[in-house]
């Protein structure tokens, strides 16, 4: 996302202090050395500090994607660097994208109210340390610093329930216009439907359930090809999406996520738990663009599409149109630029 946002904002510079597991974009300033050894940590720390110092003198604004900080050695939820930047007249924008700001404790309360698991409750299953008071304290501090010092905050109000007190702007995704694709003719009487699931983190995406569903539906006599992509480069995933008819995205989150967007942009019929009725930050009408599917509805909804294949193509088309309108560079990029321009003018 850093790379895409960088492309959208003229004269911007992108900085990455950690290599990405799936994406291989170049950044303007990039620390590529991996490892947790002391030397790497020291060099990364110096790199971050120097980059911060340089930007403090040059930038009109700095957007922090996630909970990354320049001063990697500090444990102050970025309070020092935010203060430093603002002292130099630099606007600070926080763009939270999920686990960075989400409070598992608050999401657990939501589960108690709704009766349904959500991404926050799944996080603790995946990583128990996220269910500790110390973890919650860290999220509290991150939110507090952002509330006090950020000039603008982007987040997803329900999917990323947090300790932020200020009103936030909805996050969105930005997908290059030239990357939209997928031949619609693949939906015309396909020989065999292709169903793709590509979880970045299987526990969070519902992969175990998906596998059970696939087994069950095959036992019921449905014939389809199931492709599961784990740990593969994004370039491979995008290729697969251009062939896929149905995508099983993720089933605990209230927003599409990056892979969901990629699937929509490829014209696939997407099943996922993103739901405008649960996440008010999604644009009205979003639920038309995919088949809203909770983790306990995967069987019924996939069975439905396999039984009614005439619905798959139109669903994919609606999803693609939604993606063009809401996340393409040409549409969403302009909206982001306006917000940032208004901020620094």
């Amino acid at each position, binding site marked *: 996302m850093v790379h895409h946002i960088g492309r959208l904002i003229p004269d911007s510079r992108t900085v990455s202090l950690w290599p990405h597991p799936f994406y291989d974009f170049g950044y303007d300033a990039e620390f590529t050395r991996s490892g947790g050894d002391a030397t790497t940590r020291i060099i990364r720390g110096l790199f971050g500090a120097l980059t911060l110092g340089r930007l403090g003198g040059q930038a009109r604004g700095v957007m922090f994607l996630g909970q990354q900080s320049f001063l990697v050695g500090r444990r102050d939820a970025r309070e020092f660097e935010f203060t430093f930047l603002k002292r130099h007249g630099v606007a600070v924008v926080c763009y939270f994208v999920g686990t960075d700001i989400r409070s598992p404790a608050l999401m657990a309360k939501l589960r108690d109210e*709704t*009766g349904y698991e959500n991404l926050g409750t799944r996080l603790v299953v995946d990583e128990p340390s996220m269910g500790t008071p110390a973890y919650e304290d860290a999220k509290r501090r991150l939110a507090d610093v952002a509330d006090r010092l950020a000039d603008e905050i982007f987040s997803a109000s329900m999917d990323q329930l947090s300790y932020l007190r200020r009103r936030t702007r909805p996050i969105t995704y930005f997908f290059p216009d030239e990357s939209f694709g997928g031949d619609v003719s693949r939906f015309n009487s396909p020989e065999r439907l292709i169903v793709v699931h590509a979880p970045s983190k299987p526990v969070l995406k519902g992969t175990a359930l998906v596998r059970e569903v696939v087994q069950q539906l095959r036992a019921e006599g449905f014939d389809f090809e199931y492709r599961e992509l784990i740990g593969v480069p994004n370039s491979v995933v995008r290729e697969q999406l251009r062939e896929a008819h149905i995508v099983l995205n993720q089933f605990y989150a209230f927003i599409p996520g990056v892979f969901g967007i990629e699937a929509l942009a490829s014209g696939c019929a997407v099943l996922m738990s993103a739901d405008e*009725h649960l996440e008010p930050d999604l644009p*009205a009408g979003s639920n038309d663009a995919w088949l*809203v*599917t909770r983790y306990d*509805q995967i069987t019924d909804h996939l069975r*439905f599409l396999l039984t*009614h294949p005439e*619905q798959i193509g139109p669903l994919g088309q609606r999803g693609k149109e939604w993606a063009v309108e809401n996340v393409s560079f040409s549409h969403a990029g302009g909206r982001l630029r306006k917000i940032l321009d208004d901020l620094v003018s």
Partner: protein
Amino acid sequence: MISAMKQSPRPWTGTGRFSADLADRRALIVGGTGQIGHAAVDALNASGFRVAVTHRGLRDPGGLDAEILVLDSADDRALRAVARGSDLVVDTTCFTASDAQGLIPLAGEVGSLVVISTGSVYLGDNGTYFDIGRDESTYPVFPVPVTEEQPTIPPGVDGYGGGKADLERALLAREDLPVSILRPAAIHGPYSPRLREWYFIKRALDGRRHIILSRNGESRFSTTSTLNLAALILACAQTPGRRILNAVDEEGLSTRQIAEVVYRLLDVSLEVHGLPGGPDGELGRTPLDAPHDFVCSMDRAKHEVGYQQAVSYAEAVAADIEWVTSAVAEAEAAGGNWGDVFPSIVARSGLEGWFPYQVEDRWIESLHA
């Protein structure tokens, strides 16, 4: 290409002459195997027309009492060949100005043309329209009632309503084309692909006594029974001319009243819980909910073609209930469910989208906590 699936004593070909003999009147319904076609076939048969319907051959036309012609309405030449000489042509398949091009040459070759448009062509007084008015702030605002004088979406605007508005303009630009353009609202009837009343019918059948309605159940969005639409089609056939008419059920009931009609017909007790504002998440989100009332006037239809509503809303819904309960029972007997009767509802909303019973139950429990 045309193929006749059923032989008739006299082949269905255009003669270029309309019939003065009432017993010999011929009606052609283009795209006639859907909900409008079924109702129109029955009404026209009852009125003495000899009826043919065209369809693309993609699905079983069902038990229609009409001659079935497999024809793609985009094939202008074929359409003209079968339509020529008809006393009435009803077209349910036109969506854009380019679709009108297939009908315009029928000027002078048919007695009367009826084209199904939509109330979605109307432009709200706040400058928005249904295609883009998806939430409380962008929903179009209309006077009550909406007459045919209400401005429509300007030319060249994409979308369902924009396309239909362009279609209307293209048809009316031809002054010698005797076309009646009908603007229905929320259509309901047997064979409906997206019966909005199913929201209430299924709840009643499931024994759900409680219904949660946004806006205290007071919002109104005009409905259009296919039975009443068929009556209007017949009235236009009997009075050929060039006109635009709304086509809605005159009652203009609120969502609460609609729920009451359904539950009364199914003899199920009903308790309505009103939310004062709009839907709250999944609560109160009915397919007939409207942030601002959309109620259309039928005065012009009554005045210009002597239209009389054929059935009350309750009578129409009784027919809906009879059809849908039979259709769902058939689907279930085949191992399926109601989603097989309404795949387009499920494709857009999921199997629980219209029926978030668990969420509703928790909310109702919280009232008593």
